[in-house]
């Protein structure tokens, strides 16, 4: 993320004026158990991924004073597919790029994320890895388990986003407003076995998903 003051100002304005207006006013974000959100970094916010706006919604949960510390973790191949999109993702949204599949090649795809946690930043992660159907959890990838294991003292706060997947679902750029509710769970901490942590996180997210009864989406 750039240290250029103009870019930082642009980032602040984008989140304070555009993102907050869309997420908090136009869509109307309701937060259940806001007190469970981390007060400061380092921390990891883990959410379900159904929409392009998920990361912005998760970032809107935190106060603006923490904006410089908020870093969504996102796929490099998607956001760096064009120069403009790459610049926007990198400088304005402030993503931490992850090269998908690089773990199988022997590298550590989450190295930048671990370094960010060491700097006291707050990561926004979607353990499903890619966007799925609204209100439906997919199987979690292993990355979050590895990250939690590597930084076992960092709290992982699960949050289930209800409704945002319908506003702009996968494959559609049309924004149709629906109420958005984020249920925040109790913080979890990394374990020796990343599989056990992922199972625990999945159970927590499933429980959060069941807290809100929303109409069916066909």
């Amino acid at each position, binding site marked *: 993320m750039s240290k250029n003051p103009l870019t930082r100002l642009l980032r602040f304005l984008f989140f304070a004026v555009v993102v907050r207006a869309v997420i908090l006013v136009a869509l109307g974000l309701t937060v259940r158990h806001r007190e469970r959100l981390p007060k400061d970094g380092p921390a990891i916010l883990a959410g379900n991924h159904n929409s392009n706006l998920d990361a912005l919604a998760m970032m809107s949960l935190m106060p603006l004073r923490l904006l410089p510390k908020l870093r969504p973790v996102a796929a490099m191949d998607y956001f760096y597919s064009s120069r403009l999109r790459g610049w926007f993702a990198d400088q304005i949204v402030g993503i931490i790029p992850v090269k998908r599949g690089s773990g199988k090649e022997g590298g550590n795809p989450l190295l930048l994320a671990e370094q960010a946690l060491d700097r006291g930043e707050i990561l926004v992660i979607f353990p499903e890895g890619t966007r799925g159907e609204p209100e439906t959890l997919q199987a979690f990838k292993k990355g979050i388990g590895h990250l939690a294991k590597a930084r076992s003292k960092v709290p992982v706060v699960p949050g289930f986003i209800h*409704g945002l997947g*319908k506003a702009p679902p*996968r494959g*559609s750029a049309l924004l*149709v*407003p629906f109420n958005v509710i984020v249920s925040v769970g109790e913080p979890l901490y990394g374990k020796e076995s990343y599989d056990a942590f992922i199972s625990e996180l999945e159970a927590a997210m499933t429980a959060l998903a069941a807290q809100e009864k929303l*109409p069916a*989406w*066909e």
Partner: protein
Amino acid sequence: MIGAFTLCILLNQTVAIFFLAFISYLALKEYLSLIPTRRIDREVLLFAYLAIPIRYYWAAIDWYGMFILFVPVWVFLFLPPLLVLRAERGLSARGRHDLLGPDDDGVHALPHGMAARVGRRRQSGRWRSRALVLPCGADPVQRCGAILLGQALRPPQGHAACQSEEDLGGADRRRRHDNARCGACRPLPHAVGYALVCAGRPHPRHRRLPRRHHHVGDEARSRREGHRRTDPGPWRHSRPRRQPTYAAPVFVHFVRYFYYP
């Protein structure tokens, strides 16, 4: 909220219009979040949102009457309890229609009928009645037909022959192709087209006036000189902004008939 509402009403009409529009937006969003919706409804739901500023604009130019402003609020107040009473979440087509029947009658037929009834200008009121009330008459017919048949018309899933999917690689790279000329597969562009045609077509009584009869905004002089059946507006065209009167119902009903049972 009541205090803010009262303040807005007392302060300024423009402020009140914007305030009510925002309240209507919130109420409509609440309502649409409570009822079961489908992916295929998205375009129509977006139009429902876009209709809010249009309707408030009409109210601001003193065309539509203030009664229309509270329609989304009625929906908000009236339908969620019905949903709860019926205890239906996965609504069948018939259940959905029974549930939305009052919405159809209240949101569409009643305001349109009222708009025609309260038309201030007698010469355009008759045409407005035909343009607005007749399409609304189809609502009860449609509803009765759905009840008698036991199931409503299915929303368009698209004709299989008109649709194809192109797999560009990866789950996120799928692109659907619709036949742009098929009205059932692509009702929205067709509705826009028909609405534009209606908007562009001048009303029989809304003719372009000769220059010597052109008294911009001077209705009294127009009447004094015997042009009672004309309503001078800008560009020597009688009330060109009345054209949405005819375009909007066509758009709304065309879309509704295709999308909603």
